[in-house]
């Protein structure tokens, strides 16, 4: 009994991976907050004592305000809820934050305006800006662009084909244009590769241009909030749904009947069984793209479905990732597209 219990606990502990990419920074941030609270608490107590002494009530708003030297106090923290508009991209303590996404880039140079690629120093991250091509340099320098882009804009401009999916650490999905996902496959580490990653639920699009080995490391270092994805997020009110086939994007069905759209949405959002963190289905699995369109022009939600028996799952562009039982999707899609 004892041995079996220990074995099970070891197994559970063995699957645990810290989600905080910068634990030292996170702890020191909490130290600052705790210190501010203590100082503010002491100061408020002192002020209150003085106020009592003079028979007056004194309120000191500045005492509870943030310390001026705290960068965390001047940069809005990302929220844990999915964003639908463009994310505000910030850089704090070497970590790029956009919506619920964090990309640690310690030591990188930050550029906030466009600049010629040949004038760009190695390892520059462009925030809502981009390198301008051209010039005498032949060997492109490693760079990243991080741009806040609304989910609808991103999906409208998205590729006509079913995109490929990348599961970020923690389990939330990102989407990559077909043909680019190979940049993360095994190959020479020094080979220069380009990867455009869209994270609609976080309102951000990221372009990586760098050697393959470095690209793999950076993508693996991305962290997200909410850390663990929940049920699929698909807002109600869609007026048109298309289901596109695997790979080609050819439409296999269109639904405009509100009742059938509601039935499909209820079935997808009702799935509660989550995919364990750390598990990723093979990238070459056939997938179907279910696109929900809304009366508000341009509003789009994309659900990517893999109904393969060996690895059924569904993800939403607005967030969420669930296990898809093998016997659910085929009859459901056939029924609603009949």
């Amino acid at each position, binding site marked *: *009994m*004892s041995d*079996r*219990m*220990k074995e*099970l*606990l*070891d*197994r*559970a*502990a*063995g*699957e*645990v*991976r*810290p*989600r*905080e990419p910068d*634990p*030292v920074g*996170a*702890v*020191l941030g*909490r*130290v*600052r907050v*705790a*210190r501010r609270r203590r100082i503010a608490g002491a100061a408020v107590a002192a002020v209150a004592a003085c106020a009592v002494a003079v028979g007056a009530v004194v309120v000191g708003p500045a005492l509870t305000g943030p310390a001026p*030297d*705290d*960068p965390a106090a001047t940069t809005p923290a990302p929220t844990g809820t999915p964003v639908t508009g463009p994310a505000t991209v910030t850089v704090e303590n070497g970590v790029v934050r956009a919506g619920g996404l964090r990309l640690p880039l310690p030591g990188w140079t930050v550029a906030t305006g466009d600049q010629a690629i040949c004038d760009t120093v190695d390892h520059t991250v462009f925030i809502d800006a981009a390198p301008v091509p051209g010039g005498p340099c032949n060997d492109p320098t490693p760079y990243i662009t991080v741009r806040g882009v609304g989910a609808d804009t991103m999906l409208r401009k998205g590729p006509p084909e079913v995109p490929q999916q990348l599961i970020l650490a923690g389990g939330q999905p990102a989407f990559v244009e077909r043909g680019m996902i190979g940049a993360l496959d095994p190959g020479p580490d020094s080979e220069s590769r380009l990867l455009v990653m869209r994270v609609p639920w976080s309102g951000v699009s990221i372009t990586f241009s760098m050697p393959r080995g470095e690209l793999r490391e950076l993508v693996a270092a991305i962290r997200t909030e909410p*850390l*663990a994805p929940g049920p699929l997020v698909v807002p109600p009110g869609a007026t048109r749904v298309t289901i596109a086939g695997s790979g080609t994007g050819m439409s296999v069905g269109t639904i405009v009947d509100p009742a059938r759209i509601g039935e499909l949405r209820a079935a997808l959002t009702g799935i*509660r*069984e989550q*995919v*364990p*963190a*750390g*598990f990723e289905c093979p990238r070459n699995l056939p997938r179907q793209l279910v696109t929900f369109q809304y009366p508000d022009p341009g509003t789009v939600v994309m659900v990517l479905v893999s109904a393969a028996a*060996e*690895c059924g799952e569904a993800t939403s562009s607005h967030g969420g990732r669930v*296990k898809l039982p093998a016997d659910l999707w085929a009859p459901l899609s056939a029924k609603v597209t009949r």
Partner: protein
Amino acid sequence: VTAAPDGFAEFVTARYAALVRHGVLLTGDHGLGEDLTQDALVKTHRAWSRLHPGGAPEAYTRQVMTRAAWRAGRRLWRRERPTVAVPDTAGSDPYDSLDTAAAVLAALRALPAQQRVVLVLRYWGGLSEREIAAELNCSVGTVKSRAGRGIAALRRPDGPLVALLG
């Protein structure tokens, strides 16, 4: 900007993952476990001049975490998150190995905090009942009763781990 005292950043970098594993088992929840770890490290930071060099910062941090998790059963119970569902543990599922870990965490999460803490210290930490009582500043009888109830809950015929415990 707060600077890390000498050796603190190296300690956190080296031991953070192990401490998070401890925290996740103590709480049965990844988010709460990492939160517990970082809170404990704040206290370690405050006590760093006493702990480094020559002290035992990891043991200190683990004790802070353990006592905080133990106290959660008394006064922070509102932060406890009851489990909603325990994943199946069918044999040939490709998710099986990860599901087992998830099932164990879900089962821990479903236990009252004090039973969970005692079971983790007893079976994962390998501490005796007397050592656990000293760690938690409680009686051996309390440790025995919490451990007994925790094991009984896990081994119930309809309990979440009955199949895994055999």
